[in-house]
C-alpha cells in the first residue's frame, strides 16, 4: 500500500512540475511581452494558453535529426541528462507538510550534486555537436559552472549551520519563527545570483548568448531533443525558485492560507523575478562574469559562512 502511495506521489509531482514548467513558457512570453509593449502569444486557445500545447505538438512531429558529424551517442544523451538531473532534485523538495517524495537527511547536498551533474548535459551537448559555436558555448558553460557552483554551495552553508541539518524539511521547520532571509540576507543574494547563473538565464546566458554564439551549446539540436533543453531550462527555473522559497522564505510557512498556497505564491514571485531580470539586463562578458564570481562572490560567501559560524557558536 505504501508503495502505491509513493508511486502516486512521484507521478503527481512529476505531472505538476512538468505542467508548471510548460505553463511557464507561456507565462514568460506573456510577461516579457507586457514589459516590452507588445502582445505575446494570444491566438491559440483562451489568452494564448494553448500555444505551449501547439509548440509541443510541433516539436514532437519534427524530424528527429542527428547531424552526421555529431557524436551520436553523446549527442542523444546530453538533453536527457539535463531533464533527469533537474527532475531528480524535485524528489527531496518539501512542498508542504506531508507533500514530499522523500526526506533525505542530506537533501540539500543531493540537490547541489544533481545541479552539478546537470552541467554535463551542456558541456557534452556542446562538445558532441562538433560545431565551433557549440564548442565555445560548452566551454563557456563549463567555466561558468565551475565558478558559480563553488559559492552557490558555500552561500547555502549559513542556512545549514543555522538549521543544523541538511534535510530540507528540517530547514523549513527551523524557519517557523523567522525566515532565514533576515539573518542570511547575504547568503540569499548570493544564492539568487548563483541560481540565475546555474539556470543559464540572462544575464548569465553566455553559454547560449544568442547574439554572439547563435544558440551556443544547442545550436545543432532540433525537435524534441531541443525541447528537452528548453523544458529543462524552465524546470530549472521552477527548481531554483522553489529552493529559494524553501531555504530563505520559510517554505510553506505563512498565515491564513493553506501551506501549499503559500509555497506556490513564493515560488511564482521568484519565477516572475527571474523573467524580469531577463527583460531588463544586458549580458556581461564571459571574463567579466568569471572574475566577478571568483573575486567578489566567492570571498563574500566565505565571509558570510565565517560570520554565521562564529555567531552560531557564540549563541550555543
Amino acid at each position, binding site marked *: 500500500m505504501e508503495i502505491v502511495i509513493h508511486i502516486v506521489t512521484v507521478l503527481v509531482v512529476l505531472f505538476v512540475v512538468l505542467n508548471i514548467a510548460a505553463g511557464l513558457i507561456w507565462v514568460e512570453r506573456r510577461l516579457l511581452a507586457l514589459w516590452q*509593449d507588445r502582445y505575446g502569444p494570444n491566438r491559440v486557445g483562451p489568452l494564448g494558453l494553448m500555444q505551449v500545447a501547439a509548440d509541443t505538438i510541433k516539436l514532437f512531429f519534427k524530424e528527429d535529426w542527428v547531424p552526421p558529424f555529431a557524436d551520436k551517442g553523446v549527442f542523444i544523451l546530453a538533453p536527457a541528462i539535463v531533464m533527469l538531473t533537474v527532475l531528480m532534485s524535485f524528489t527531496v523538495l518539501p512542498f508542504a507538510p506531508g507533500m514530499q517524495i522523500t526526506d533525505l537527511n542530506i537533501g540539500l547536498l543531493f540537490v547541489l550534486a544533481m545541479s552539478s551533474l546537470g552541467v554535463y548535459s551542456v558541456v557534452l551537448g556542446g562538445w558532441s555537436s562538433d560545431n565551433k559555436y557549440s564548442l565555445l558555448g560548452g566551454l563557456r558553460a563549463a567555466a561558468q559552472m565551475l565558478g558559480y557552483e563553488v559559492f552557490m554551495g558555500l552561500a547555502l552553508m549559513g542556512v545549514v549551520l543555522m538549521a543544523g541539518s541538511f534535510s530540507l524539511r528540517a530547514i523549513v521547520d527551523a524557519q517557523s519563527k523567522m525566515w532565514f532571509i533576515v539573518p542570511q540576507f547575504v547568503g540569499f543574494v548570493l544564492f539568487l545570483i548563483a541560481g540565475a547563473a546555474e539556470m543559464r538565464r*540572462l544575464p548569465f546566458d553566455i553559454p547560449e548568448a544568442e*547574439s*554572439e554564439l547563435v544558440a551556443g551549446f544547442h545550436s545543432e539540436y532540433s525537435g524534441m531533443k531541443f525541447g528537452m533543453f528548453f523544458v529543462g531550462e524552465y524546470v530549472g527555473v521552477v527548481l531554483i525558485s522553489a529552493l529559494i522559497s524553501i531555504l530563505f522564505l520559510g517554505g510553506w510557512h505563512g498565515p491564513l492560507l493553506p501551506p501549499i498556497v503559500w509555497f506556490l505564491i513564493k515560488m511564482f514571485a521568484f519565477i516572475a523575478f527571474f523573467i524580469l531580470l531577463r527583460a531588463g539586463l*544586458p*549580458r556581461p562578458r564571459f571574463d*567579466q562574469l568569471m572574475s566577478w564570481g571568483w573575486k567578489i562572490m566567492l570571498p563574500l560567501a566565505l565571509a558570510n559562512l565565517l560570520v554565521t559560524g562564529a555567531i552560531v557558536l557564540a549563541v550555543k
Partner: protein
Amino acid sequence: MSTAVANTTILSELQDKFGAGSIVPQETRDHIPTFWAPRDQIHDIVRHLKSGVPSPYKMLYDLTAIDERVRTHRDGEPGSDFTLIYHLLSFERNEYIRIKAALKSDDLHVKTITNVWPSANWYEREVWDMFGIVFDGHPHLARILMPRTWVGHPLRKDHPARATEMGPFRLPDQKQDEEQEALRFRPEEWGMKRSSEDTDFIFLNIGPQHPGTHGVLRIVLQLDGEEIVDCVPEIGFHHRGAEKMGERQSWHTYIPYTDRIDYLGGVMNNLAYLTAVEKLAGIEPPPRAQVIRVMLSELFRIISHLVWYGTFAQDVGQLSPVFYTFNDRERAFGIIEAICGARMHPNWFRIGGVAQDLPQGWDSMIRDFIKYLPPRLIEYDKEIMRNRIFKARTQGVGAYSAEECIEWGVTGPNLRACGFEWDFRKKQPYSVYDQFQFDIPTAQHGDCYDRAAVRVEEMRQSLRIIEQCVNNMPAGSYKSLQPLSAPPLKPDNTMHDIETLITHFLGVSWGPVIPPGEALGAIEATKGNNGYYLISDGSTVSYRTRIRTPSFPHMQTLPNLCRGLMVSDLLAILGSIDFVLADIDR
C-alpha cells in the same frame, strides 16, 4: 569657374614640385580643385599631398575609376580609356582635392597607394574588381564585391548590365560545388597562420547568416580560445550593382535606388544624390523645398539612430530596448507616411524640390513627436547608457583615436566620438543647414560607449533642427520652376501651345538632359559622409554614378578594432559602428 581652380595655391605647389607640364587642372561643376597627373607620378603626388604640403590632405575620401571609352563630351581633358580618380580631403583647408590619372586599355597598371593610406586597400580591390585595373604592389588584390568566380569587370561599359543581356542562369551540381569551394576560407591567402608555437587557432566563420552581423556580412575570426587574434571581414553579399544601375536609369528614375543604399536613411540618400545632380544642373531649389528636405532628413536621422540604439542594446544582450525604440520609430514612420505616402523608402525628393507639398496637419504631427521623444530618450539613458553592465561591456572596448579615424576614412558619429568636432552640416553646409542652430556632440575616448553617447545626443540635436523647421517653414513652391527640374511642374502656360506641351512631355517621359560635367555631392548622412560623384555626358542618364558610402571604410577598420579582444566584444563593436550592409556593398 576657371579662376576658382587657377587661384588655388595647391596647383602652383604641385606644379613647382612635379613640373608644370604634368599637373593639368580641369574645371568641374562642383569647384573642387581637380588635376590630371601622369600615372607614374600618382603615388608620389598623393604621398606629397598627404604629408608634404602645408595643411595636408589627411583623408583618402574616395578612390574610384571611370570607363571613358564611350564618352563623348571630354572637353579639354586628356584622352584616356580609363580614368582613376582619387578624392582626398583636408580638414585644415576644409577642402577636397581630386586627382585623376589617365590609363590606356592595353596597360591598366598603376602603383598601389596602400603604403600611403592603409584604407586604400579595399578601394583598390573594388576598382580592380569593377574595372580590372591592376594595382602593382597591392598586398591582396582579390575581388571584393563580386563572387570570386565572376568573369569580367562589371563597371566596364562592355559588361552586360541586365540579366536579359546574359544567358539564362544555371547552377548544375558541379558549378555549385565550385562556387562553394570558392567561398572556403584559406588563412594562408590572408597571411594568417593556422597555428602558433603553443596553440592551434580556431577559424570561426561568423555570417553571412548570423544574428549579430545585422545583415549578410561574413567575418572570419582567427581565435586563440575566445580571444580574437585577427579577423577578415568579407563583404559583397549585399551587392546589387547600384552604381551600374545608375548608368541605365534616367536622372529622375534613379532616385528610388538611392533610398536603398543606406536603407535606414530613407530620403537622406535622395538628398546626397540630388545635391550632386543639382550642382550639375545648376538648380537652386526654393526655400520651402530646402527646409522640407532638411526636416525629413533629420527625422530619418532619428529613425536610423533609433534602430541602431535598440539593436546595439540587443547586441550586448539586452532584450527589451529594441522593442521600445522600434515603437518610437513607428511613430516617426507615421509622420513619414503621412507626408510621403511610404515608410522606409519614401523616394520623395525630386530634382529641384520634393514630390508634393506638405499635407494638412503635418505640423501638429511633428510637434507631437517633438514632445514625445525627449522623455523617452531620458528613459533609455537610464535603461541603457547608465546601466553598469552595459558600461562594462562598452567602455574601453574597440577604441580608436581621431588620427586613426582620419587615416582610415572614418567619418560621422564614429569620428566625432574621438573628440574631433567635424560635421559636414556645419563645416561644408549644404542645402540650408547653415541657417539652423544645433550643436555637434562629441566624446573623447572613441570607444563603443562614446560612439553610442554621440548618437544619442545627435537625436536630441536633430529634434532641435526639426523644431526650427516646423516653426519657420517658409511659404512658396515646393519645387523649382527651372527647366531641368523633374518631373516638371505645370506652370500656367504649359498646356496652351504645342511647344510647351512637347517640352513638358519630354521632361516627364525622358526626364531632363543634364549638361555635361561632373560633380560630387557629399552630405552628413546618418552614418557618416555619403557622397555621390556623378559624371554627366550630356544625356538623360548618368555616365558614371559613384557612391561613396560611410559604412565601407568603417567596416574596413574592423580588424584594427577587435584584435586582442573577445568574441563578445566583436559583437559590441559591430553594433557600435552602426553600419548597413547595403551601404557597404551598394
